[in-house]
């Protein structure tokens, strides 16, 4: 029995498959079990093509999941009708990666931010809606003088602030942040990360934070889930996963990051060979087996179960005790 008051978002065996012709299926998200405590951030890391963005969109039903459950506040939203889902959308928002393509180039900044308010008919009059826009702009650190500008007239960092203001407009409880800082320079990245963390504190937001950047994910997340080829291979509290990574893929991933200090300079990087296999009709067994230095016969035939090895530390690997 799950304690609904503790977890705002939960997925059970969530699957999203895409048909790719000739009777083949791409397993983008393949049986994901996540739990995000209220007011916390779950970071989802993984390399390109591992299904992390599809996961984020499936949770919001922007892509219809193939199978499994998504529990938002204890309600399975996969069963909801379109109209019911629509009402719920005000509670669930998304911030996209690319602030360049996620804003309408022909709408001013204030119109862009007002759009979700007007679409969802949150205020009776336009004047009220625009008053809320002013408030939102202040919250995310956008100066009033930018209100009537168009997206091409402002920088990437400011554009991402507009994206955040749009997501916040309807007072959501849950936000999927899909690589929100990847397109930004480091100094701007830090500004946006600080903003997201401040907002979480002020409004008690719950984030699913998708990124490929491990230093960013450690900074912002309470818990981290590591994905590989559509599956979650490890999930644990942020500090624990960095201190004691259990899954060989997590270990390899952490080893591969070049750190900005000279201490590790002479260290020989442990480099995993090979590349990610295709997610189209994957072979049975552990998906990482072909690249894993510890793989046994069992790993090549039997899919490991995602199990809790110590409180809140989940791993899918035969070799981890």
């Amino acid at each position: 029995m799950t304690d609904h008051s503790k977890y705002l978002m939960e997925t059970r065996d969530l699957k999203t498959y895409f048909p790719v012709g000739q009777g083949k299926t791409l397993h983008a998200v393949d049986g994901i079990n996540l739990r995000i405590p209220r007011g916390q951030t779950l970071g989802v890391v993984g390399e390109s093509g591992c299904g992390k963005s599809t996961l984020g969109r499936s949770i919001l039903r922007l892509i219809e999941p193939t199978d499994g459950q998504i529990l938002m506040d204890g309600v399975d939203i996969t069963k909801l009708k379109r109209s019911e889902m629509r009402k719920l959308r005000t509670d669930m928002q998304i911030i996209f990666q690319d602030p360049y393509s996620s804003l309408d180039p022909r709408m001013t900044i204030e119109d862009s931010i007002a759009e979700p308010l007007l679409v969802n008919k949150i205020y009776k009059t336009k004047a009220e809606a625009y008053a809320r826009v002013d408030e939102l702009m202040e919250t995310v650190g956008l100066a009033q003088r930018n209100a009537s500008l168009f997206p091409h007239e402002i920088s990437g960092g400011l554009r991402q602030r507009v994206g955040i203001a749009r997501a916040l407009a309807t007072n959501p409880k849950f936000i999927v942040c899909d690589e929100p800082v990847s397109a930004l320079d480091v100094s701007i990245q830090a500004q946006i990360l600080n903003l997201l963390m401040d907002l979480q504190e002020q409004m008690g937001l719950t984030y699913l934070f998708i990124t490929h950047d491990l230093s960013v994910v450690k900074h912002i997340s309470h818990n981290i889930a590591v994905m590989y080829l559509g599956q979650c291979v490890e999930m644990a509290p942020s500090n624990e996963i960095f201190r004691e990574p259990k899954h060989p893929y997590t270990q390899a991933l952490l080893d591969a990051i070049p750190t900005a200090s000279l201490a590790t300079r002479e260290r020989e990087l442990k480099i995993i060979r090979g590349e990610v296999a295709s997610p189209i009709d994957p072979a049975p067994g552990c998906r990482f087996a072909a690249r894993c230095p510890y793989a046994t016969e069992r790993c090549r035939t039997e899919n490991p179960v995602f199990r809790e090895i110590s409180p809140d530390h989940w791993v899918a690997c035969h070799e981890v005790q």
Partner: protein
Amino acid sequence: MSQELLHVKDLHISFKAKGKDVRAVTGVDFTVDKGQTMGIVGESGAGKSVLGLSILRLLPDATAYIPQGSIEFKGNDLLKLSKKDMQKVRGDQISMIFQDPMTSLNPVMSVGDQIIEALRYHNKDKLNKAQLEQRVDEVMELVGIPAYRKKEYPHQFSGGMRQRVVIAIALVCNPELLIADEPTTALDVTIQAQVLAIIRDLQKKLGTAMVLITHDLGIVAQMCDKVGVMYAGEMVEHGSIEDIFSGDFHHPYTMGLFGSIPNLETESKRLSPIPGLMPPPNNLPEGCRFHPRCKHCMEICKTVAPEKYYDKEGHYVACHLFRDKGKEENHD
């Protein structure tokens, strides 16, 4: 006994745009010795890529020009070479690895043909066809691509493999200097680690010097011998890798860059980012170009551009804060 391979002296690069001059790079000096790796760090728009392209004279003639400065390669000013002589240098003595392996390869040419192209053009050793093919096989093995794949086309390779092809093309003529412009930015971390290891091994084996352009301080720490930090077209700090990564003689911008990256080793509650944005090159502020974003900004910073202040040979900071602490550049 000079080991000096490349010497960029007081280089200025400008673009003509709508009748106005846009100054992309101003007064950059640095040297690269044989076998050394020089890192150029900075954020988008700092002028890093323009600087890299200028060394190979790949900037568009129609808009870009170099009003001042020289780029000496083994004592010869590359800027004074004729077009024909420059072509002899490109791909042979100096070659380039571009950021995006998806767009820097020819999609309708097999990778083997693309590797052999540069070799056949230069062909210093008058190799015959069979020898050329053999050299291609060698280079492919060197970067870790099985030679039987040379008949394949770029779309049949993954991103990491494509970047290996780009590296093979750059290395096929055994260049003395490699310019790598964000060579791993488009790659995933595990693949990035593979590609960086290849570049490092090859450098050791072949003694190739490198100018590595990147925005990632982690890569700099792992790969470089010395570093130049660029901001708004200027090199605001320059020093050995130890100079940059330790001590407290640093440009506020360098400090800002370090404050902006979340640290994996230590716990930090909040990042300390640099407020504001880098100024566009057509609208640079008076005085120090960093002053509007600098928390140590003084009156003098708003009007007077700072000199380079040295704390020791090879390590300078262009910042008024170090006026008294550092020695001014001695022109000898």
